[in-house]
């Protein structure tokens, strides 16, 4: 019975069915299954499959994004039970990602978030036009392994540098690896501002993130 339910959960992520993923999570909890097991046996298997299919070129971005949305919705249903059980989800790493202040371009960052989710990272997307202070607060709150800063304008790239400087001032720099990206950024810019990682696209971002967290 539970095996069948886990299979449906997995499939709901593969199909990107957000509401179904939520319903199945509630159904699992109602039938007495553990939240940790639901997550690991159902949804994580689904998002892994989505990641594999994308990697093989069989899935496209909308399928990846919808899969990550379904996964997120299910986790939201499970979260109170996960917290109550004091359970720690197995994760490739905790990541916080956002587009820096003054910049409203968030599609690339959203794709990176979806790809990281599919690769097993626990990702918090803090959106776009994010002030330096908000990144610092999120780092204090979530203690992420990775902070990903996106910029699509030459005029907003300096805010990547300012965020890294602010991390230093807050005494947080040693605790978090910083990755940067966005069309006008380069590896040379990443080196100049002291970022730990740079990726040209979302696929490379996953590889770099895994390298930085030792999840490779």
């Amino acid at each position, binding site marked *: 019975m539970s095996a069948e339910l886990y299979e449906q959960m997995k499939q709901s992520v593969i199909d990107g069915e957000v509401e179904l993923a939520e319903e199945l999570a509630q159904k699992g909890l109602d039938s007495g299954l553990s939240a940790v097991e639901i997550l690991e046996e159902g949804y994580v298997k689904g998002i892994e499959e989505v990641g594999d299919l994308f990697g093989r070129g069989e899935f496209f971005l909308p399928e990846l994004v919808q899969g990550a949305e379904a996964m997120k919705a299910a986790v939201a249903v499970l979260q109170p039970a996960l917290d109550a059980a004091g359970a720690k989800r197995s994760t490739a790493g905790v990541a916080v990602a956002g587009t820096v202040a003054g910049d409203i371009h968030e599609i690339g960052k959203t794709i990176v978030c979806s790809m990281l989710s599919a690769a097993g990272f626990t990702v918090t997307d803090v959106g776009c036009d994010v002030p330096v202070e908000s990144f610092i607060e999120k780092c204090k709150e979530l203690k992420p392994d990775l902070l990903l800063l996106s910029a699509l304008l030459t005029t907003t790239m300096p805010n990547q540098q300012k965020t890294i400087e602010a991390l230093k001032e807050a005494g947080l720099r040693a605790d978090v690896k910083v990755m940067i990206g966005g069309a*006008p950024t380069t590896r040379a810019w990443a080196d100049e501002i002291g970022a730990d990682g740079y990726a040209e696209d979302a696929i490379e971002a996953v590889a770099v993130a895994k390298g930085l967290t030792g999840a490779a």
Partner: protein
Amino acid sequence: MSAPREPGVPEGAATAPLDAGLRRVHEAALRVLADVGCVVADPEAAALFAAHGAAVDGRRVRFGEELVARALETAPAGYTVAGRRTELDLRVGRGAPTVLGAASGPALVLDGTEQRHGTLDDLRTAIALAHLSPNIAVHGFSVEPTDVPEERRAAVGAHAHLVGSDKGFRPNVSTLAELRVATDVCEIVYGAGWHERPRLWTIINSTSPLTVSAEAGQVLLRLARLGQPICFAVCAMGGTTAPLTPAGLLTVQHAEVLCGLVLTQLARPGCPFLYGGTSSLASMHTGALMMGAPEYWTLMEATVRLGHALGVPVRAGGSLTDAHVPDAQAGIESALALKTVLDLDVDFVLHAAGILSSFNCYSPLKFVIDDEVVSSLRAARRGLVVDEETLALDVIAAVGPGGSTLGHAHTRRHARETMRATLMNRAPFRAWRALGGRDLAAAAAARVDELLQVYTPPDDLDAATRRQLDAYCLG
């Protein structure tokens, strides 16, 4: 397609010349404007809409067809942009040749096979090449001089353009501070009355989907009130900021441009307006905008037709490619994209030379290759001249069956009319090999070196103007 009309002379139903499909796109865009509306983030711009009958709810502006119809009554079908000297004036609009602009805006430059951030030296190279081009009439920030501090970039860049070339200059106006620099340098070079004629080449972008940012709205209002042409350009990305299906993508693009058109005409009836569109599809594998995709060519054709059907000039297309180096892919995609819009008599083309990696990278080599492709396309578009001299019946009779025209005076008379390629190889194989067997990129690199050797900046600015410009921009 309707005939050209003069400013302020209405031309009947806007949608009349469109085919059934594009008519539906136009009607769908009108529905979007009425039902969904656009966010117009600048309160002054939103208030202007409200004062003219639009339904304004916070920043959301909805309006019906009547505002569009009124805007079309006053938007001119063509206009002349004043140049530094009268002979450099440029006519924009149907009946006038397409005005071509150089690559615009990338932060990166291709250096060998690597990309790096652009410098002021790179920008000076781009300015020199644009100045020497027989085709490019307008240029502006073909590469960002990222080694200049951001707060000084607009002024230092303006100086480099105005001193380095007398061609049309397109400053960046994405902020009020940049706009201020643009208008200040105009006043220095052309005097206090600089805005009595259309003079500034600028691009104002919407933020797809369906948003006019506060700064875009503020810049638009100020430029329009100065009577300066508004090129309102939309770069929606199918699959991310607009529907992936080209018809839906065009609907979003068309609605946004109409919003910009109405705002411009409300700010100043009769203000020159350019219908701008460079929307394309995002790759569903990477999310990147695809400028080499065949769907882009279809979209650009529709863009030109939609704009022209409104009776306003259109900016669309460019020598655009997804290739990262000036290779065969770059040449194929760029030439086909440019030919698509030139064949439709588009009015203005930005990125006509020098751009790579969609909109992300400038390359001097790509610039000279594109420039030669433009020369070729222009030569082809001149078409057949059929008259007594070109039919050459007397020559055919004189040479007779089996003869040769090579030694005939007629052949000699016309020998220099054939377009002479400077980069494209026309030599036979062994002769080509004997000359080093260069491929196009190698020939382009040599050509860039030659051009930079012969380049001399114009000296038409008088000493007092030059001193003032130096003091303002570099002081």
